[in-house]
């Protein structure tokens, strides 16, 4: 048993840190620090191209596809260090979501066509899974794809599409057979966002931001060659993808960074002659969440260790998602509480409102990506066998 990173891993961590110190552009970092989302698209692409130039564009991919060959632990170290250094998150939809599906189930042609462009940030991908009537119950999705010669003709609507307003491509689950059971009859399609008949409408969120979209498909024609795998077998690929979506699901790096910020900010607010960090009540809450984060960090490493042995993510990831998002929300609550009444003044694009904006926006964490209620169902059914 050993909780510490090996000498090799520590050397790797130092290498990542040095790289970040040298290569992360100051203006990008500064926007992350200030919670300024105005340049998300440019910053994400710029940073991805820097990573790509270093050969780190797709850490988790196998070497034959241009990945790094890093161990799970190294991937974890890389992601955590990036977050701690206030680097932008890599866009998951391409690198972590559609790419593993293509590598496992896509044709060689699809792999050659799409993977290099994902790694190089030439294509921005988004996800077309949820629909207005199909959130937690994804398998009830209704968007139709009817075969017409070498093409599918798509009609329907997707919802809760994250950052699709920037996207070049979307991967979609569509219904190709309405007569079958819900999980059967779904296919997995790759769709060029420039195809005619696609309309993207950004959804304004409660914090004033625009992150998610509704997308309408009106007789959108997609070549059959853009289908991944077999017709009507898309649910299998979707489940495979959901399993892979779980990397870094606990958000350890984010939480460590924001907790560090909370501690340093609270050390500057004075009450009764000492700082709020020293205050037994407020400081005690910080201590509490730090302890829970410490535990989750170890739990996360345990899951990584077990996955490395079993070679597949298991339902344990649901625990990481639940506790990780609870901790992130808790930190954002404390950041807001630290401000007291000052948190009342709000403009979603202002530096002063960072904590409040974060509190509002992060309500999504327990809803999106499989709500925490769904995760608890998964734990009850898959782990506890209830």
């Amino acid at each position, binding site marked *: 048993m050993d909780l510490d990173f090996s000498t090799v891993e520590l050397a790797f961590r130092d290498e990542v840190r040095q790289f970040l110190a040298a290569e992360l552009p100051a203006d990008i970092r500064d926007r992350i620090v200030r919670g300024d989302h105005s340049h998300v698209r440019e910053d994400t692409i710029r940073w991805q191209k820097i990573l790509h130039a270093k050969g780190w564009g797709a850490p988790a991919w196998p070497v034959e596809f241009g990945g790094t060959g890093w161990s799970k632990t190294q991937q974890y170290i890389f992601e955590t260090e990036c977050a701690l250094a206030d680097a932008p998150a890599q866009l998951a939809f391409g690198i972590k979501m559609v790419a593993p599906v293509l590598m496992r189930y896509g044709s060689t042609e699809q792999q050659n066509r799409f993977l290099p462009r994902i790694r190089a940030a030439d294509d921005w991908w988004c996800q077309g899974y949820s629909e207005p009537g199909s*959130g937690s119950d994804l398998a009830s999705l209704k968007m139709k794809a009817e075969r017409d010669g070498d093409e599918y003709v798509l009609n329907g609507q997707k919802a809760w599409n994250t950052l699709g307003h920037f996207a070049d491509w979307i991967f979609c689950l569509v219904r190709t057979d309405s007569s079958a059971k819900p999980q059967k009859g779904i296919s997995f399609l790759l769709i060029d966002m420039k195809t005619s008949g696609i309309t993207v409408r950004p959804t304004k969120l409660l914090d004033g931001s625009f992150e998610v979209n509704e997308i309408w498909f009106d007789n959108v024609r997609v070549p059959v060659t853009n289908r991944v795998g077999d017709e009507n077998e898309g649910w299998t690929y979707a489940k495979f993808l959901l399993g892979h979506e779980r990397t870094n699901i606990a958000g350890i790096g984010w939480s460590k960074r924001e907790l560090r910020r909370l501690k340093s900010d609270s050390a500057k607010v004075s009450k009764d002659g000492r700082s709020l960090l020293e205050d037994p009540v407020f400081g005690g809450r910080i201590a509490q969440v730090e302890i829970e984060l410490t535990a989750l960090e170890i739990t996360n490493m345990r899951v990584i260790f077990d996955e490395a042995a079993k070679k597949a993510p298991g339902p344990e990831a649901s625990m990481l998602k639940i506790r990780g998002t609870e901790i992130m929300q808790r930190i954002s609550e404390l950041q807001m509480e630290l401000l007291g009444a000052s948190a009342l003044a709000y403009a979603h694009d202002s530096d002063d409102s960072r904590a409040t904006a974060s509190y509002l926006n992060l309500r999504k964490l327990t809803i999106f990506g499989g709500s925490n209620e769904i995760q608890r169902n998964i734990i009850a059914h898959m782990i506890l066998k209830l």
Partner: protein
Amino acid sequence: MDFSFNDEQQMLLDSTRRFIAERYDFEHRNHVRATADGWSRDVWKQFGELGLLAINIPEADGGIGAGSVGTMLVSNAMGEGLLLEPFLSSAVLATHAIVQLGSAQQRGDWLPALATGESIAVLAHDEASTRFDVMHIETQAVRSGDGWRITGRKSLVYHAPAANLLLVSARVDKEIGLFAVPTDAAGVTLLPRTTVDEQRAADIVLDNVAAAASARLGEDVREALQVVLDQGLAALCAEAFGAMDRILAATIEYSRSRVQFGVPIGSFQALQHRMAEMLMHLEQARSMSYLATLRCTDTDPVARRTALSAAKVLMGQAARYIGQQAVQLHGGMGMTDELEVSHYFKRLLAFELRCGTTDEHLAVYHQQIR
């Protein structure tokens, strides 16, 4: 012990609710908040005509004198409708301040115009320094001839941009004085802010602002100002209760109609128990709103302060639980600007933070009982 409302009180509630139902639905509210002012002068005028702006003015001063229960019920309705007008700021806080601290002359000068809505006043008290001690202000008033010169900075005064009259608290030696200052007086600068609950406010900079001797209300107002703030807090609690009541109703309704896995999500036991928990928070909050209302004029300062702080603590926690769970149970839809739920959620968040946060009031309460 009596938890019923008398006929006048019930009528006040019903008529306010009716007005809001007819004139201030969610669509109209969206329109109002998109205007430059962010609130409706038209609605405000009608409030004046309905008498709602006179409920805290005693009959002797030409008002209605509906008392704290009347204010609670009107505030309930305002919270239910998420209204954006300066009712709490002007018709409760500022009106109480003038009624309780003003001379006959001052009451006569200001109250009639407040009652009709022609005039809007706000109490400018909070500063960066009042966080852990609500009476620790740094704004100073110094004598200058017959009058005063006031310098300081007030934080996030709700509806200040709408007001023509500011009631500014300031240190006068070791006392706290209250001064009526026209918003357009020389040396007054408003820095407009929007609040997280979509209301308009401003930081106010006072740079050597002249005030006549006649502009001062009362003498050392420390005690009286606390009573006014407590009356405002009781009204804020009532408003928050109205918002909690509606956001829970909306959540229950949504859970009945939203189908997943072939059944309404309200049929899932885990969600049912969550909503049962929300209801208990709501009913406990209702009790505390009553307590705040009936104790906010208590002549025993300890009874008054413990009741108000207890109410703010419990209702702040209820607001957080109910608000967060309402968003959660609405799923993605709860995150959007489109549905009412997120606007209630933000109003409840503002409630937690306004007039002393949950933590601050728990400390006040603890101080009293230990």
